[in-house]
């Protein structure tokens, strides 16, 4: 296994995933294929996604947290005259909630990232920790564009289109206001998040190859979701800007799915089915993969616990008594030496001979 095999493996897998609906709808077609890819697979995927996540989270929560082990990243709470850091070293629930908010919304831990620079010359080794916020930036850009794009899709799921979608669209598409010349050419407005998402995913992929250490640790399972999302984004962008599909028909389909009276209208192009199938694969894959970090972070004991063990007892549900070497046994062994050295003892000299007799 090396990175080339990993990339090939994932690349081929995703190509096959693209080809399946392409062939089934584009070449074979027919009512059955359209229901399969328009109705059955989407339902199955959503069910897998929801049930899978719930099962996984329940499975995590069934393992207890025997010890309170937060990683502290700031000053603890102690004397009133020492300023503590309630976010990075929370003392109670409030601090933990703040810490989690910072982690989940701003990726605070990732923001600490640095890059090792190692120099070694005649003056000996020199280690520098260089600025490195690209991963943090790309991860933020990626997740937030993903979120915005997801929310924008509600224009296809709901009728009438909810207000927040309009707000998002106008914010996201502010470039339409004549800054970009595309407008005049009959192109729809360009969304910033489309470009951001593709750029961020591309960066996340490229860094997996050019950062030596990341290349070495990457598995096919790291390239696979990136390729799927890239495919998802590209087909989406294609549909919007190049190969137009019948939006009214697509909306009819998705609303019918949400109303549990599914019906695949005629005239939806192949490209849409490819887009939808990629999405189905992504969400069905989700619960079985590292993408579960979305839910996992909330349960992470090093982040979601307060550093308050010295003043608030934490109970281990499976705590059991252990045998330890007692003072009595210790004194029995060393009594004479202790007495000789003038160390107070519990039992006195007679006990020495007694315990001697017993043995």
């Amino acid at each position: 296994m090396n990175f080339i095999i990993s990339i090939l493996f994932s690349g081929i897998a995703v190509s096959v995933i693209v080809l399946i609906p392409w062939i089934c709808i584009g070449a074979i077609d027919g009512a059955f294929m359209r229901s399969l890819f328009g109705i059955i697979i989407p339902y199955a995927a959503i069910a897998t996604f929801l049930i899978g996540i719930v099962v996984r989270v329940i499975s995590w929560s069934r393992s207890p947290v025997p010890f309170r082990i937060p990683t502290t990243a700031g000053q603890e709470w102690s004397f009133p005259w020492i300023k503590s850091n309630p976010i990075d070293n929370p003392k109670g629930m409030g601090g933990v909630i703040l810490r989690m908010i910072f982690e989940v919304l701003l990726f605070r831990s990732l923001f600490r990232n640095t890059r090792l620079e190692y120099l070694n010359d005649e003056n000996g080794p020199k280690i520098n920790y260089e600025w490195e916020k690209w991963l943090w930036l790309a991860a933020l850009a990626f997740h937030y564009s993903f979120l915005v794009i997801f929310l924008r899709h509600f224009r296809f799921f709901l009728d009438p289109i909810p207000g927040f979608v309009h707000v998002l669209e106008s914010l996201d598409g502010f470039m339409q206001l004549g800054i970009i010349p595309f407008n005049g050419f009959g192109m729809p407005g360009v969304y910033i998040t489309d470009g951001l998402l593709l750029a961020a995913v591309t960066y996340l992929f490229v860094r997996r190859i050019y950062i030596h250490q990341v290349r070495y640790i990457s598995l096919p399972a790291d390239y696979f979701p990136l390729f799927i999302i890239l495919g998802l984004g590209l087909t989406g962008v294609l549909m919007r800007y190049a190969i137009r599909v019948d939006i009214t028909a697509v909306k009819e389909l998705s609303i019918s799915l949400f109303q549990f009276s599914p019906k695949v209208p005629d005239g939806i192009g192949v490209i849409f089915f490819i887009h939808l199938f990629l999405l189905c694969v992504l969400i069905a894959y989700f619960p079985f993969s590292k993408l579960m970090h979305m839910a996992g972070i909330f349960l992470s004991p090093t982040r979601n616990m307060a550093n308050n063990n010295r003043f608030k007892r934490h109970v281990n549900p499976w705590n059991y008594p252990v045998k330890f070497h007692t003072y009595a046994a210790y004194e029995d062994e060393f009594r004479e030496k202790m007495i000789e050295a003038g160390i107070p003892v519990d039992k006195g000299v007679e006990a020495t001979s007694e315990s001697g007799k017993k043995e």
Partner: protein
Amino acid sequence: MADTPKPEKTARINHIPPLMKGWMDTPVEIKPGIYCYGAKPKNTKAVGMPYPKEWNPTDDDWQLPENWKDIIDEGLRDRRDKYRSMKLFMDICVRCGACADKCHFFIGSGDPKNMPVLRAELFRSVYRKKFTLGGKIFGKFAGARDLDEDVLKEWWYYLYQCTECRRCSIFCPYGIDTAEVTILGRELTNLVGLNIDWIAGPVANCNRTGNHLGIQPHAYIDMLDFFVDEIEDITGLRMEPDINRKGAEILFVTPSGDVFADPGTFTAMGYLMLFHYLKSLGLDITWSTYASEGGNFGFFTSHEMAKRLNAKMYSEAERLGVKWILGGECGHMWRVINQYMDTFNGPPDFMEEPVSPITGTKFKNANATKLVHIVEFTADLMKHNKLKLDKSRNDHLKVTFHDSCNTARAMGFLEEPRYVLNNVCNNFYEMPPNTIREQTFCCGSGSGLNAGENMEVRMRGGLPRANAVKYVHEKFGVNMLSCICAIDRAVLPNSMDYWVPGVDVCGLHELVANALVFEGEKKRTLDLRAEYLPGMEDEEDV
């Protein structure tokens, strides 16, 4: 014992992993200078650990029990169901690599399997094969592999190259703590009789004699008496420490390393002097020979062993009838106290909320565990002006401060030591921000890896810390590295000699005692190391 290469050679480090050959196809090679000797049967037997045997890690045959795979399998299942951390950390790593270059062992060795994420993957790969559908179907392509003897050896080799410092966890977007993986992984190696002797020996000693070094009670007294004489030479005053005294208000527990080896001994002398100073102000404190170990090498063996050794502290406190416990300067001791002790062996209801008998300060942050850190105790004394201090006595020192991993990242004990330091010396310089406080670097020899035979890996692991010291050494002339950890004091002198000659190592209370002005003391010309104080070089030593 392997020869340790010269620093120039050690410093030639390549951080670029192989291009075409993946880690799963690269079998482990157990190298001298890196690995520690296997646990001796007498030590594992002494505490009832399974499969005691005479073995050598470089042998092909590790004399594993016949059903070792079943034992590991069951151990893994058991821990998966008992520790959410384990389950979660096996599932959610995205291999973003944020942790990769944060580990001192990777920085100092370039061995890619010392990247925290890969250290955990060594483990995760087996976990996937056993417990995940993808792993079962796709095998290697899902990053999964079977457990065989080579894999077990690889585990062992890299689990005992992690000092459980948690630096990687600070940078992980999900807080994945490779130390937790190491802790549980080491438990598994112990199930099939694969510990290292540098851990097993201290555990056996601590169990029997109360401390890692195996010091018997009378020898412990001898050591304290020796300190008393030394201190008398320097100050003209005679300390009178109490030992195993029932009815004292406070029990003092500190790592035994400080009682037996320089430069920790100077810190131990510092404690004695501070207690003597406070006696007339109302301090009523006793040492114990039975609970004469603050540290806990059991923690590097298994949670159960940690609990067994830790149990002595409360047990002794109850026997002596003290109101609370004062703990000495130590790193992993405080990890155990802060994050485990009360859960292991509490609640200690027979004690009371700790209150400083001198200042009346209530240590509210310790009112469940009843353990106060001596540095916070001293900081509080200073805040209330209870100590007469002459900072200039430390003017011959240019001091920097090394945060111990455990007090920094498992406690957040950052300001108290700096406050104390600023009260006892005039020249304090911080190392660069990426190497201190929560981002502090391990000394390179923590978690029971401070043996002699693995000196090369210790020096490698110690490089990032040493490099930061070198920076302040060259820039400000720093000549003293202070710390609040007994392992640090035992190991940093080696790493300083190796990487930054000219820098000594001390504990905080050594500096406190240097500066402490006693009523009725003789004119102080010497510091605790019996070296001349600044401006006293010409004085006759009396």
